[in-house]
């Protein structure tokens, strides 16, 4: 069973629908016991880092996620889930889980594209990946595949070895992070069509 962690961060049902569409059982839960019993966990979400961390701590889920990572359970973070695994977020100046060292930063409003056009915030829409390290979860993903992003902040891990892929939006930022049994995407796997579902499916079968 896959546990989708419920921390009042919205769009959980979208992830559940995508996993169910793949024919895989999953449950949305905020029960520590259920998360401990799960074979693998997903923590998706939209929203602000401050509110997300507050809700995780209130329910003891920060411990549950860290413990799942520590014992080697496959862990997938999506969107804000790829940010709060770092030590700190500039959004609401929030201390985060600290599974990876690093900081979550905001896009600067003054950035311009190569053509000098003002870049809009949030970074919203389809964008590609520049894959830095091959990873089993990327099997079946083509070089031209694009993914759906909606975010104003991005993760900046300290250790470059954790960066699986980067994406260009005024700057080059880490759009996939990975360490051992942890995999995290800044983009929405559940809203990225065929390649998004492919990564989700790979995760559901992954034995790191």
């Amino acid at each position, binding site marked *: 069973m896959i546990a989708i962690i419920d921390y009042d961060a919205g769009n959980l*049902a979208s992830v559940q629908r995508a996993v169910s569409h793949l024919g895989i059982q999953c449950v949305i839960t905020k029960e520590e016991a259920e998360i401990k019993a799960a074979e693998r966990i997903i923590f998706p979400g939209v929203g602000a880092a401050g509110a997300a961390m507050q809700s995780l701590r209130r329910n003891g889920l920060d411990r549950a996620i860290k413990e799942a990572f520590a014992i080697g359970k496959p862990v997938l973070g999506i969107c804000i889930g790829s940010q709060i695994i770092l030590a700190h977020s500039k959004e609401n100046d929030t201390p985060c889980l600290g599974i990876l060292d690093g900081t979550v930063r905001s896009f600067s409003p003054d950035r311009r594209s*190569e053509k000098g056009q003002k870049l809009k915030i949030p970074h919203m*829409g389809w964008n590609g990946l520049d894959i830095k390290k091959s990873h089993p979860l990327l099997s079946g993903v083509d070089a031209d595949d694009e993914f759906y992003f909606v975010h104003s902040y991005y993760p900046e891990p300290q250790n470059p070895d954790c960066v699986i892929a980067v994406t260009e939006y005024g700057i080059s930022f880490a759009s996939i992070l990975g360490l051992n049994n942890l995999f995290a995407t800044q983009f929405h796997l559940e809203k990225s069509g065929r390649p998004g579902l492919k990564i989700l499916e790979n995760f559901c079968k992954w034995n790191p």
Partner: protein
Amino acid sequence: MLSKRIIPCLDVREGKTTKGIKFKNNVDIGDPVDMARLYYEAGADEIVFYDITASYEKREIMLDVVRQVAETIFIPFSVGGGIRTVADMRNVLLAGAEKVSVNSAAVKNPDIIAQGAKAFGNQCIVLGMDAKFVGKSKATPSGYEIYINGGRTPMKMDALNWAIEAQKLGAGEICLNSIDADGTKAGYELNLTTLISEEVDIPVIASGGAGTPEHLRDVLTLAKADAALIASMVHYGTYTITEIKSFLEKSGVKIRKTW
């Protein structure tokens, strides 16, 4: 680099897709869930649904459509039409839409944008705008006036000022429809789109007037729109999304090529 989005728009009346010209003479053209699936498989980057059901009591039908669409396609989609309260927004989002679009209700009560943004995040709230060229006046310094009620009621409100105000209130995106261009297939209103795109910091979806791939190229490059809404040019099979996208790619527009 971010791709420009191509977004089919489905008008839905009592659970059926319909198409009218200048908001009138609507005829049913199919099942919205089937059409959404076909466009998803054909490479649409997003889908917009407008519920044009006249009766408030029959709006539950649309929520059923949204639930079925959410189980069928795995790209973002938004729902607009008849959204009047934060509770309406919540119902649509819980049914599985990525975003909700408000139009007339936001003109009458701008605070609904702020309330929606606070409850669900800016990225969920799209401001739908129907604008018409009326010439510059004291009430409309940009020359474009806001209309509500499906383009029937002029509001003596300036389109550009309204776009800027909506962004301040927390709208995450603007879907900008030209009443003059809508249904004409003669091209988007490039002046209007440029005016709004250059002044706001949030993405702008251009709407109304698409008839050929050249029209999309122009609005996405010259008029700086972030996305282009299309309807009849794909609903009736005149063009496929692949044809439109390959034309845009050849014209140097960055688009999503694989799906």
